[in-house]
């Protein structure tokens, strides 16, 4: 299928972009235009691949594990590419973010690209709104993760040398906090949109199914990390660890729970 070949080409562009970004940090070079161009090319190809599959199957990329991984690689890449373009000061954080994306891409490559059935409960605009907000949330947390990774890497002599031209830790922590705050707003919106969808689809707005429970726990962890920063005037290092905690929780919610539990979120009914 041509859409798969285009997807592989997109992933190749991402891998080149990420590899160049990582090597550039290691060698203290700045091929930023090349990296941005490769990210953009990958995104265009990836968008075309998703659009072709959408057109062929008649539904968006949110049924099978393959589709969910593909659409999340796309949205994470888009979020980071936008940050890379608009906030040049944090471009070296690509060396932290891209390996995370490589992991998800590797998972995607090992996943069966077969088709799934769109359950009747998915025929609603709220699905798109719910997923859209979720993607913005996860993208914001990913950018915060990259920044936090830089803060933690700078604790070592090797990392301090490689990331020396970024703003100081306090300012990076402030930017990371802002990303988390944006993420918090969008995760709240995601939960509200999800509740509206659940009410229409299953006749209840909240039932503590595993995905809802984990999404709420992630929301709480984001809230706790934002509050902890205010309460204890946390050091950038501790704040960075909290961001990593939020990312791990969000990652498990997005990519773990839907595939290990037998919940309506799987579209089983």
């Amino acid at each position, binding site marked *: 299928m041509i859409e798969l070949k285009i997807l592989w080409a997109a992933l190749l562009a991402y891998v080149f972009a990420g590899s160049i970004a990582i090597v550039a940090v290691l060698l203290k070079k700045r091929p930023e235009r090349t990296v941005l161009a490769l990210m953009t090319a990958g995104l265009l190809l990836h968008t075309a691949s998703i659009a072709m599959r959408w057109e062929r199957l008649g539904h968006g990329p949110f049924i099978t594990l393959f589709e969910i991984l593909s659409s999340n690689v796309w949205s994470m890449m888009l979020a980071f590419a936008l940050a890379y373009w608009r906030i040049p000061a944090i471009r070296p954080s690509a060396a932290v973010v891209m390996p995370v994306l490589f992991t998800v891409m590797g998972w995607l490559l090992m996943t069966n690209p077969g088709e799934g059935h769109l359950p*009747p409960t998915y025929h609603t605009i709220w699905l798109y709104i719910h997923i859209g907000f979720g993607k913005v949330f996860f993208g914001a947390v990913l950018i915060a993760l990259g920044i936090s990774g830089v803060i933690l890497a700078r604790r070592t002599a090797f990392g301090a040398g490689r990331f020396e031209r970024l703003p100081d830790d306090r300012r990076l922590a402030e930017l990371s906090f802002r990303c988390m705050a944006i993420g918090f707003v969008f995760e709240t919106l995601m939960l509200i949109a999800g509740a509206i969808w659940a009410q229409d689809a299953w006749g209840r707005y909240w039932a503590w199914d595993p995905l809802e429970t984990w999404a709420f726990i992630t929301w709480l962890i984001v809230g*706790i990390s934002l509050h902890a920063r205010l309460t204890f005037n946390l050091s950038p290092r501790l704040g960075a660890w909290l961001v990593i905690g939020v990312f791990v929780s969000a990652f498990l919610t997005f990519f773990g729970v839907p595939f290990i539990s037998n919940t309506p979120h799987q579209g089983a009914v």
Partner: protein
Amino acid sequence: MMRVLRRLASLKLTLAALVWLGGGVVYGHWREGHFTVALVPPLLLLALNLMAAVATHSAFRRWNGLLIFHLGLIAIVLLAALGRLTYLTGRVELSQGEEFGGRLIESDAGSWHAGDLHRVKFFNEGFRIAYSPGLQRGQTRNLVRFLDDSGKEQTKEIGDQTPLVLSGYRFYTSPNKGFAPAFIWHPAGGGAPMLGTVHLPSYPVNEYRQAREWRLPGTAIQVWTLLQFDEVLINPDATSEFKLPDRHKLVVRIGDRRHELQPGDAVELPEGRLEYDGLRTWMGYTVFYDWTIHWLLVVSMLTVGALGWHYWRKFAARPWNETRLHEMT
């Protein structure tokens, strides 16, 4: 008094209560059904903490968005609590042509639920469901007939995302539906004939178990009923639609006697005459009542809007890389 309020308004207490709430969620998930016990104490503490904070912290007076966000959180908790006290969930099955008369097969309700369900009336007028290859269920289109608030008869197609809403009760079609043989029971001795249906197990998920045992009304006689047909109703290899079989027979076993019935056939018993009226369909519904849901939506949107507004004002005031060190928080 102010000292107590300030202690109660502590941000450290907020953090502790949030962690407690997280632990409560995990506990409630682990011990299924214990959410109320696990969540009410930390939510109460958070509400008290928040109200004390609103009364004592100057930040809430400086930042209106932050104040509205936190007041919104209190309102959400209160609305959710009221919702839990007044809600109703349940399940009902109706044969084609049957009227809903307020009785549910099973239900769960809050202790303050007023119980107006007996006033809700509607008829199930049958359904259509298309299937894709692989027995993949498509949209459910269930026609219902009811009287609106002005007493005028209305018909409406409901299903999946579209519930029937009557007196605040929301009726959603469920994935459960199937065949319902209809019988007329003529009691010996001249009692009034009774029409009733037997809901066979949900189809097609129980394709090979289309049998059910039931009891004749007013007697102790057990009747075992099996629906048999040779037709492939929902072709797993093609697009098809849920429908009644063109030809079928109904096997009825009463005691050690076995009868094969067609519509119009009857079984004579000392206690009366059991007539097979014909085959219909039945549809399962989930019922939901919670008057707070619209308020919850409005308050949630206001709350998240206020949070977004707060952050927008705060972040727009100074670029992230120009923030002075003492103003970082």
